[in-house]
């Protein structure tokens, strides 16, 4: 294969995943936490596709497409929750959202 070896993709994916995890742990706005979760899912996708290229089989790419569908569903539900919070004029801060009572 021309270009970088798969291990470079693995390292890049690890750094991306760490960045997303730091975003989830450090930020308090649920919008940015959702965006950071997207970064983590995408780093896993990169790894799936890199290993599917390594083994010369396309199953990893099929799996990556399934992950995309799950990510889209997760965004729909997460944004629905955030809009429901926003309409009640609650502070969008995950440290202050302590109860699940409607």
């Amino acid at each position, binding site marked *: 294969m021309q270009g970088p070896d798969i291990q*470079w993709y693995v390292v890049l994916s*690890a750094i991306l995943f760490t960045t997303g995890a730091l975003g989830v742990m450090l*930020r308090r706005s649920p919008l940015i936490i959702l*965006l950071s979760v997207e970064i983590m899912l995408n780093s896993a*996708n990169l790894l799936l596709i890199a290993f599917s290229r390594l083994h010369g089989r396309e199953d990893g790419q099929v799996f990556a*497409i399934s992950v995309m569908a799950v990510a889209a*569903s997760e965004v729909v*539900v997460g944004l*629905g929750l955030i*809009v429901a919070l926003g309409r009640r004029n609650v502070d969008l801060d995950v440290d202050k959202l302590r109860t699940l009572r409607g």
Partner: protein
Amino acid sequence: MANFLIWVVWVVAAFACLASALAVVTFRNPFYSALSLIGNLASLAVLFLLLSGEFVAAGQVLVYGGAVMVMFLFVIAYLGDRSEDSPWSGGPSWQVVGAVLAGGALLAEVCVVVGLKAGGLLSSTEPVGRSFGSPESIGKLFLTDHLLAFEVTSVVLLVAAVGGVVLGAHARALESDAGA
């Protein structure tokens, strides 16, 4: 020469990827974060192309960069300006220190494992044909070996759509209660 060009494209895409991911995490305004996530997704699509995943790269740009991010931007614009203070304003709290330590541990673990155990295995890539990653072969795999995953995906999307509608209706009912 071609190899050198591929390396240049890889390095540019990888740095764009990392820089935009950092921007997503550090911007105070969620609107800017969402815009930089679009850059992150686009540079990841370039990396997918380098790994000969053409169909996934196209899906990434269409589904993520198109549909999902438009939904994000729409919701952020609907909620108005909700900028928060930077999490590291006012000195490092124990929360920030713990999170950075946990992230560093995660990264170190992966790098050590890759460096110690997998270094040799990861450098011998199987040769692939021209049709690798084309829509035709992906579709064939989806409808033969991974038929169950395909069907489960459709159920997941349906449930998510119903959930979105229910959450929206619930929020509207609450709002009319508050207005009455």
